[in-house]
């Protein structure tokens, strides 16, 4: 019991999946206006857009980019998980298998893609 000290009724996998989905969604929604604003410079101020794109070479920005890609991926897979859970009346073991199969396929596809480019 001392292991779970300070953690209340929320410390279980589905709740953690819920909070991850919510926080990633919130972060993506807040990032989008900036993303759109920078891209719109392609017409209004192309030189400034290039300035922003050069920023992406910096290590700090690279880490931030990794974070954004992670948020996008985690929000998409979390959402697909949610819709499968709600709409497909499968048994829990079937869902675990399906999730594992999807994760493995995605991993293989990403590895292939990394090799290909």
């Amino acid at each position, binding site marked *: 019991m*001392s292991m779970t000290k300070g953690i209340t009724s929320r410390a279980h996998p*589905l709740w953690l999946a819920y909070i991850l989905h919510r926080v990633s969604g919130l972060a993506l929604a807040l990032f989008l206006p900036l993303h759109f604003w920078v891209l719109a410079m392609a017409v209004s101020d192309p030189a400034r857009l290039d300035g922003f794109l050069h920023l992406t070479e910096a290590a700090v920005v690279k880490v931030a980019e990794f974070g954004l890609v992670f948020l996008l991926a985690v929000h998409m897979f979390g959402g697909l998980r949610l819709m499968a*859970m709600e709409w497909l009346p499968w048994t829990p073991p079937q869902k675990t298998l399906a999730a594992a199969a999807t994760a493995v396929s995605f991993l293989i596809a990403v590895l292939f893609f990394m090799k290909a480019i």
Partner: protein
Amino acid sequence: MAAEALKITIDRGPNAQGLQTEFEVPAQDNQTVLDVVSWIQQNADPTLSYRFACRVGMCGSCAMMVGGVPRWTCRTHISKVLDGNAVTIGPLRNLPVIKDLAVDMDPFFDKWVAAEGVHHGGLTRDDPIAVVDETAPARVEANAGIECINCSVCYAACDTVTGNADYLGPAALQRAWTLLNDAKDEGRVAILDAVSGNGGCHNCHSMGSCTAYCPNDLDPMSAIAGLKRETAKSFFKRGRR
């Protein structure tokens, strides 16, 4: 273990200034959380208010927050929840506190009715008794949820209820789902309407605390998912709001 004293903290809320909240309770070999609360009320502070009736997990009136988790206090052994020799016991979450450990269950029961958790009969006393096929898929679905005894543990566990006072909550929606699958209930349209409003099943984020903490091992989260499927189907079929 038997000779030690347990250090029990009772969360009596902000209105309990000056009242005792820390108690030393003699430990016993077989002792439930309810036994501990009763010992405090009988031996240390007779003004302590709490609620219980059957003491064997049938009536659903003794639920409290034990160490931050909603539980039936009568069916929870104190040794399972102790941190060292201490634990905090509080009133159920998400409901107005009347005094100490007793909460007002009215909002919980009102939502039960608001979710159309009532029988919608279609037969009269002159009709023959309807035959129920226990193996029909809908009956199996209904049977999975009918053992709910309205203890409000799931309601207290749910963060969506905390954030949205209109949300009907897991117990009421699960009852709506069992009635929707009950061959003897003819309230299909009324139920689907009741669970599609502002406080309806679509507020649920499937965080699963209801299913994780139900003392009867019921699965309200999957019942609510069933309501989402049925309302989604009727959305496409009938263009319901």
